């Protein structure tokens, strides 16, 4: 990375290798057509230069096969690139099931990152090599974008919703983390680094941290403090649905729509419960808009998700 005139970015993720292949294919296609067009221009410019002021040109005759050829050949090449590019995109957008989750909250102008074990980092992300990492991203204010060139990964970080990205680092090292979506005055300073470590080094790094609080445990405390627990009880005559086992399930709304209780649903329901009243319960839940931070919402969601996991492991089926 210390080169004076670098021409290619480091290749440090499984996706980067796959993406580079298509990139180099595109470079080859570009070179071919650029040489063809520039070469023809030079050749024609010399061969057919006007030698006398009255020189006459060849007549222009229609040539259908030629026209079909230069329509169909580029079309086929374009479709090959389309399919290849779309396949890659699906790879980049579908995290493997076993991926380790990391939450990222962007704000003007810093990255706030929390690991699954509760460890928090600012403008830095330490990860082990060879482990798929799934990022769950949201923003406190404007749209940001989480961009790691060495991984060829970029994802807009949008306020009011969760977006995801994933990668599996292949090469230890320290790589740039940029905000790629213009976000105001210090956009260029909203940078950080991703530190990819050998698993053993990563273990040492984890152990060196002061024992963090698990997001789900922090969420459980919040659940009590914010009064959620007084309605969302487990007994049957509660005023609100029980939350155990809820995450990932289908929920029927008062207008009989079916929605999945995913992270976005839970977030929306905490902030604007009136928009998605659940069937069978009076809509008495107050809004928590302005009372909880994005990180606290993530902790509450982590708590609700932990209830679902507890339920599944108890049920055993």
């Amino acid at each position, binding site marked *: 990375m210390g080169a004076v005139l*670098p021409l290619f970015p480091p290749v440090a993720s499984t996706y980067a290798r796959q993406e580079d292949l298509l990139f180099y294919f595109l470079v080859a296609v570009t070179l071919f057509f650029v040489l063809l067009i520039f070469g023809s221009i030079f050749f024609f410019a010399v061969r057919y230069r006007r030698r006398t002021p009255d020189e006459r040109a060849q007549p222009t005759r229609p040539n259908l096969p030629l026209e079909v050829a230069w329509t169909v050949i580029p*079309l086929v090449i374009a479709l090959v690139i389309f399919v290849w590019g779309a396949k890659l995109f699906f790879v980049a957008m579908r995290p493997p099931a076993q991926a380790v989750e990391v939450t990222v909250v962007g704000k003007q102008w810093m990255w706030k990152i929390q690991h699954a074990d509760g460890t928090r980092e600012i403008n830095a992300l330490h990860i082990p090599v060879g482990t798929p990492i799934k990022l769950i991203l949201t923003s406190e204010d404007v749209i940001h974008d989480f961009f790691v060139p060495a991984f060829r990964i970029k994802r807009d970080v949008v306020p009011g919703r969760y977006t995801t990205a994933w990668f599996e680092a292949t090469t230890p090292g320290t790589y740039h983390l940029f905000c790629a979506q213009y976000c105001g005055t210090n956009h260029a300073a909203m940078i950080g680094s991703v530190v990819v470590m050998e698993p053993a080094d990563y273990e040492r790094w984890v152990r060196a941290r002061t024992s963090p609080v698990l997001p789900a445990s922090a969420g459980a405390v919040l659940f009590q403090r914010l009064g959620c627990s007084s309605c969302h009880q487990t007994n049957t005559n509660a005023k609100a649905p029980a939350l155990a086992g809820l995450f990932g399930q289908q929920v029927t709304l008062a207008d009989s729509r079916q929605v999945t209780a995913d992270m976005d649903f839970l977030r929306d329901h905490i902030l604007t419960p009136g928009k998605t009243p659940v069937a069978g319960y009076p809509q008495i839940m107050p809004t928590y808009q302005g009372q909880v931070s994005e990180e606290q919402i993530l902790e509450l969601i982590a708590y609700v998700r932990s209830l679902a996991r507890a339920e599944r492991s108890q049920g055993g089926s």
Partner: protein
Amino acid sequence: MSMVQTAPSYLEDGHGLASWLLTRDHKRIALLYLVSIIGFFFLGAIFAGLIRVNLLSPQGDLVRPQTYNTFFTMHGLIMIFFFLIPSIPAVLGNFVLPLMIGARDLAFPKINLLSWYIFIVGGLFTISAGLFGGVDTGWTFYTPFSSIYSNSNVVLTVIGIFIVGFSSILTGLNFIITTHTMRASGMTWFRLPLFIWALYATSLIMVLGTPVLATTLVLVALERVFHLGIFDPSRGGDPIYFQHLFWFYSHPAVYIMILPSLGVMSETITCFARRRIFGYNAIAFSSLGIAVIGFLVWGHHMFVSGQSVYVGMMFSLLSFLVAIPSAIKVFNWMATLYGGTIAFDTPMLYSLGFIGLFTVGGLTGLYLAAMGVDIHVHDTYFVVAHFHYIMVGGAVMGFMAGLHYWWPKITGRLYPEVWGRLAAIITFLGFNLTFFPQFILGYLGMPRRYHMYPPEFQALNVLSSAGASILGIGYLLPVIYLLWSLRRGQVAGPNPWRATGLEWQTPSPPPTANFEAPPVVREEPYSYPTWEAQID
């Protein structure tokens, strides 16, 4: 070919400021536009220069971040809305469209003048926003930054862009109606010069797309002033919705900028290869094809923004399809060059340069349409390089080609050929040195709109800034020799290039009424003589 000039030329038909500011002559209005957009161009270029100086060092020494942000915002706004969009249509189109179809003027001469005044008023609003502290949203006005968080003159700027939109709607309407109703006797649709087809397609986009931009910007202003919650998620709005609306206009707007240049190419290449165009129908319909498909590809700006992957896939496919008509045009020009008798006058040098740069710009568009690669290069300098190859390498080179080509018609004088060629070559070299390094910077990962950057990106940034200074010389030279030619240039005569086309069959500069008698068209366009047979 000598003509007896009975009517005074449009330049001599009335003197004094009022004769210009109240003119209804499309040729004089074109010159009003020419002077104003050149002013805007150099204003935008000054901002570009300041950006390039700031990026000479990794820590961005020239200005503070906030100032830098207003620089690139003003650069983008001025170049797009006040130079590129009006450049060829409102200047060259305004001047030659009636001449090329054998009409006396545009269909609505007063509306034509009105559209210039609207343009100026919109420009004053946007410039005043710049003077009173500037605006820092980027030309894209992404919400909720623009509607809630930015502390700059967003509303004033948005009003300026809103107003200037009506100027291009009115110009578009005027062109469409003129082309439908005022063609000379014998000027059938398929005898129209291809520049007219390109202007027609451009006008369709202006008329259909611009209202959507206007609506979108009004919504941004309403949310900013009245906190309506249209785009702001904390009030129940959707920030991605803004991007859909914005790009629904702003991607077709790319074609507003490039289609007229593609049209100019069909005129200059046939004239300087002195050969009839190959594939007239293919070129004409590819312009319409670009205009239509161009409206269906806006989502390729949003692959990583959180739109559904399947929606993204459709936008990706359509984006690849819209590349085909552009490729067809390039191949048709190559086939026109083949077997021609090629002269290398200044307009031709700009045109050959255009083909090369447009080819690079078009091919690099494939990288961005390929979703998997776009993830990496989106919002980096790769995109900046790509669209400058299309808009500067393409649209501006096309404008320069057209300006030199029709300069003798507009002024009655020839510009000095040697200086013209020199400027064309300097522009081509300076352009590539400025923007090619930005492709590499982008792939390395340098994001756009960065006031400072990691030190390993410095060498390429210095190269780019060095190129920009050469490019600046390439743009300043024509100002000097074109002004010089107004008084000192050789008298051009009606048809210095021995071109076909009605505009060359009337004196240079033309009389106010364009033609002494209504012209009659009896042959196909671009009927240049061949060695095989006389054209009869």
